């Protein structure tokens, strides 16, 4: 007997197989139901336990929440663009990945539950870092926090500047030779009496002046020393006899007129002065730290004034002036014009007689003694020019930065601590690298012995020590000129993570929590109304199979929600729309089958074979139709806007499960229920009874 049952289980009849499938479906539904409504079940267990006085104790299930998207629970979606122009092409992926890690650590500190931070590379090669922070109340604070992440880079001197290739050199020479030939030609035309204005308009390569016949207007030595140098010894109306080579190219210049510069307001002749000065600053004046009070400073400078004469002025400056660098330069200011200095100084020096030393003059920098050495008028020249440009190496090579990035970046930083320099007790920040960083640092220092390696923070070199020897052990020190507070702050910021590449916020989407809740409850209610309408329609139109389809759709709902939870799929409004649309597709599969079934029954087939035939013939349509939608979904998933992706993910999962629910669940239920009794009541299937 037992042997018999055993055999039955192992080799089930066709009908037995159906029951197996049925049991399997029930198991799936129970598991899915427990996942979907874990909270309700657990409450039920508690209730049962208290009701039965701890007699019936069922095991509890784990409660898994839905993962809700930003639009449903509120939050922010931030898109940063990483600037990778300074990074070698091969290191870009890892540099941006490092920036991603740092941002993720940052937002974790901020207390965001399950932040999503991902790198996205666009078709045009830009790197984006997308941060989705769900449930963040203070978005402003979050953005600030990410924005404050320090950018830490380690750079070395560019080993050698790029040299021109032979080909480029030849090209450069050829270009300049042609320029010279052309310039000589133009000069020939000018000298043989050609119209300067017209020739400048035709040939000059100075785009700013060529339309005006090369007119530069009135210029002084200070404005354009090269051209003034060329024309200042010419007679009025004369033109240079030879080509003059300047940094820009070949110049042909014409002096139109010259005059002494006058102040346009009072018609006085403008003057230039050559002077030197001695500065005694005091507490309260700009950048002063000598500790003198204003009175003390005045007393000191009055004393110095008594000693000062033309001959010892420079020495007095070197010995006493508080101006940085005065001990070298002797306070020499060279030639300067009116308005170049601060007002009080300006007034004093221009009023002074040449060869005298002034009384103390007060400015925002402190007290000055001024020795006026010389004064002269300013000559102005009205000139025109024709420029034929030449090229230099820099034009081909472009600007070459002195520093270049190394592979070592902020992502390799393990820890930063404040410590004090054993020699002078000044605060420093000590950096400790991770294993990879330690190796990189060793390599970098090894290849830069006796050269500088710089630590850049937020784009500025804060420390550029010269490497004495290879450094192993993965530690470096930033010994900038900062005080203890600055050092502490820097260490704190670095410990929270340092970026390997600069980032910029380019897009932001923020949904307030209340809008999220409204949208969810409205849309859920709307979907429920829709689903109830569909159920009513199905039952009225398709009768018994319709009812079975509604049951199978219910099972479909239980399963797909369970998958959403355990996958987990981030549910957004668009995602919900995708889910709802997939219900439409699930209904469609059932409709296709039932329409087919009705047709087969109308041909007079017996129920059982009509069911088989209906399913068999409906299958290609279901397969082709759903497959084409799946193709669309997979393309949408690649199309990486999160709203679109959310929609496509739920829709494709929905389609896969809906095929299962129609082909397996609906069929199983229909076949199990089909029997003699149903054969006699064909109206239940929406078909007239066989006569």
């Amino acid at each position: 007997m037992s042997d018999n049952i055993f055999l039955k289980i192992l080799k089930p009849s066709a009908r037995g197989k159906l029951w197996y499938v049925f049991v399997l479906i029930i198991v799936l539904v129970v598991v899915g139901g427990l996942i979907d409504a874990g909270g309700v079940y657990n409450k039920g267990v508690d209730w049962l336990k208290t009701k039965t006085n701890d007699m019936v104790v069922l095991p509890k299930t784990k409660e898994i929440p839905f993962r809700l998207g930003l639009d449903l629970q509120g939050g922010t979606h931030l898109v940063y663009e990483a600037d990778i122009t300074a990074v070698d092409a091969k290191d870009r992926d890892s540099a941006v990945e490092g920036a991603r890690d740092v941002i993720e650590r940052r937002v974790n500190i901020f207390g965001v539950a399950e932040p999503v931070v991902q790198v996205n590379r666009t078709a045009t090669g830009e790197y984006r870092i997308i941060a989705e922070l769900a449930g963040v109340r203070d978005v402003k604070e979050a953005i600030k926090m990410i924005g404050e992440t320090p950018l830490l880079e380690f750079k070395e001197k560019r080993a050698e500047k790029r040299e021109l290739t032979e080909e480029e050199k030849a090209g450069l020479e050829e270009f300049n030779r042609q320029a010279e030939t052309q310039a000589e030609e133009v000069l020939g035309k000018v000298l043989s009496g050609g119209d300067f204005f017209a020739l400048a308009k035709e040939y000059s390569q100075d785009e700013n002046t060529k339309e005006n016949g090369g007119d530069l207007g009135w210029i002084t030595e200070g404005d354009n020393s090269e051209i003034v140098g060329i024309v200042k010894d010419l007679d009025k109306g004369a033109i240079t006899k030879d080509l003059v080579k300047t940094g820009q190219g070949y110049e042909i210049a014409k002096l139109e007129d010259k005059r002494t510069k006058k102040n346009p307001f009072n018609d006085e002749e403008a003057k230039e002065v050559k002077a030197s000065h001695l500065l005694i600053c005091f507490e309260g004046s700009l950048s002063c730290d000598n500790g003198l009070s204003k009175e003390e400073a005045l007393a000191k400078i009055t004393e110095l004034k008594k000693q000062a004469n033309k001959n010892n002025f420079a020495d007095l400056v070197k010995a006493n002036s508080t101006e940085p660098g005065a001990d070298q330069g002797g306070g020499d200011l060279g030639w300067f014009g009116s308005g170049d200095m601060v007002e009080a100084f300006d007034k004093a020096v221009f009023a002074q007689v040449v060869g005298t030393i002034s009384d103390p003059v007060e400015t925002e920098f402190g007290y000055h003694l001024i020795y006026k050495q010389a004064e002269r008028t300013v000559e102005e020249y009205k000139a025109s020019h024709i420029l034929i440009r030449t090229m230099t190496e820099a034009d081909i090579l472009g600007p070459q930065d002195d520093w270049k990035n190394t592979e070592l970046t902020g992502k390799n930083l393990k820890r930063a601590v404040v410590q004090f320099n054993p020699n002078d007790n000044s605060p420093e920040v000590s950096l400790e690298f991770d294993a990879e960083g330690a190796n990189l640092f060793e390599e970098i220092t090894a290849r830069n012995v006796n050269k500088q390696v710089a630590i850049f923070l937020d784009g500025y070199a804060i420390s550029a020590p010269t490497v004495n020897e290879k450094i192993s052990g993965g530690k470096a020190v930033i010994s900038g000129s900062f005080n203890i507070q600055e050092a502490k702050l820097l260490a704190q910021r670095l410990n929270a993570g340092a970026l390997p590449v600069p980032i910029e916020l380019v897009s932001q989407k923020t949904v307030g929590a209340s809008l999220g809740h409204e949208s969810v409850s409205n849309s859920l209610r709307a979907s429920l109304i829709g689903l109830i309408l569909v159920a009513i329609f199905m039952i009225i139109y398709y009768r018994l199979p319709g009812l079975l389809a509604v049951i199978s759709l219910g099972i479909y709902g239980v399963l797909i929600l369970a998958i959403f939870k355990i996958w987990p799929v981030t549910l957004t409004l668009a995602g919900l729309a995708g889910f709802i649309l997939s219900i439409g597709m699930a209904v469609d599969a059932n409709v296709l089958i039932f329409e087919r079934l009705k047709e087969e029954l109308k041909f007079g087939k017996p129920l059982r074979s009509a069911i088989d035939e209906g399913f068999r013939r409906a299958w290609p349509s279901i397969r082709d139709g759903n497959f084409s939608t799946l193709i669309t979904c997979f393309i949408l998933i690649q199309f990486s806007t999160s709203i679109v992706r959310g929609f496509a993910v739920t829709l494709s999962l929905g389609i896969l499960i809906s095929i299962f629910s129609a082909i397996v669940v609906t069929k199983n239920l229909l076949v199990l229920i089909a029997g003699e009794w149903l054969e006699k009541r064909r109206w239940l299937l929406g078909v007239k009874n066989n006569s």
Partner: protein
Amino acid sequence: MYRIIQKRNIWLTISGLLVAVSVVFLILWGLNFGIDFTGGSLLEVRFTEARPEVGQVQDSLADMNLGSLLVQPVGENEMILRFQDTSEQKHEEVLEKLSGVNALEELRYDSVGPSIGQELKRKSLYAIAVVLIAIVAYVAWAFRKVFKPVASWKYGLAAIIALFHDVMIVLGVFAFLGNFYNIEINSAFVAAILTVLGYSVNDTIVVFDRLRENLPKSDEDFEGTVNTSVNQTITRSINTSLTTLLVLLAILFFGGDTIRDFVLALSIGVFVGTYSSIFLASPVLVVWEKLRSGE
């Protein structure tokens, strides 16, 4: 049996007219692209006390140099502001100034840099093109064994004509809505268009599939066989669309604001997609067959 295919000239004319009108709308008004495409900022706030007048809000922000500020009252107490500047700093300043006008709560803030917008446009066109190619390829493959009297690639092409028709009509409706009701095209709209593509081809394939099954055993001519197939599948097509539309319309009328435009685009697309699978794709096949056989 309905004589659908025999009256094909009526349906083809209706479709032609609808597409023509849509094209005219698109040329006249174009699409009203939202900030997803153009770049810019969108701020939605709810005033917790009384909503100020639009003019008041504009005045309070007048000296901020936001670039083409648009203020639009929505719902009972909400207001949507659109402006060109996308910096976080300006966003905070705007919120501060608005709170000065009346107490409020920030519901939503989107800012999109101009480069992102350009990229989305490019990506959308790319996605639509890839979907179309994939679908034609799949249809051609699925119908590869059907040769006579119409080649298999023509089924794919007929499906594409139906798709083009559906998408044009949805675009035309949104050009109209954009011009008169200020409804904007955003990235969700692109998703809707792509879904309509999938849905419409699904519908068309079901009809063609029946035709594929009927052709070898049919004793009618091609036109008759197509008509029979359309009639056999019409109930299914309508019922399926009806159930999908029931859900979509429920969301459209009772659902959340944020997906309303998206659902509207889907609803129009599903409706037109069903129409085109019955009244456009199959008649086009018949027209082709007639042209080939020289009638």
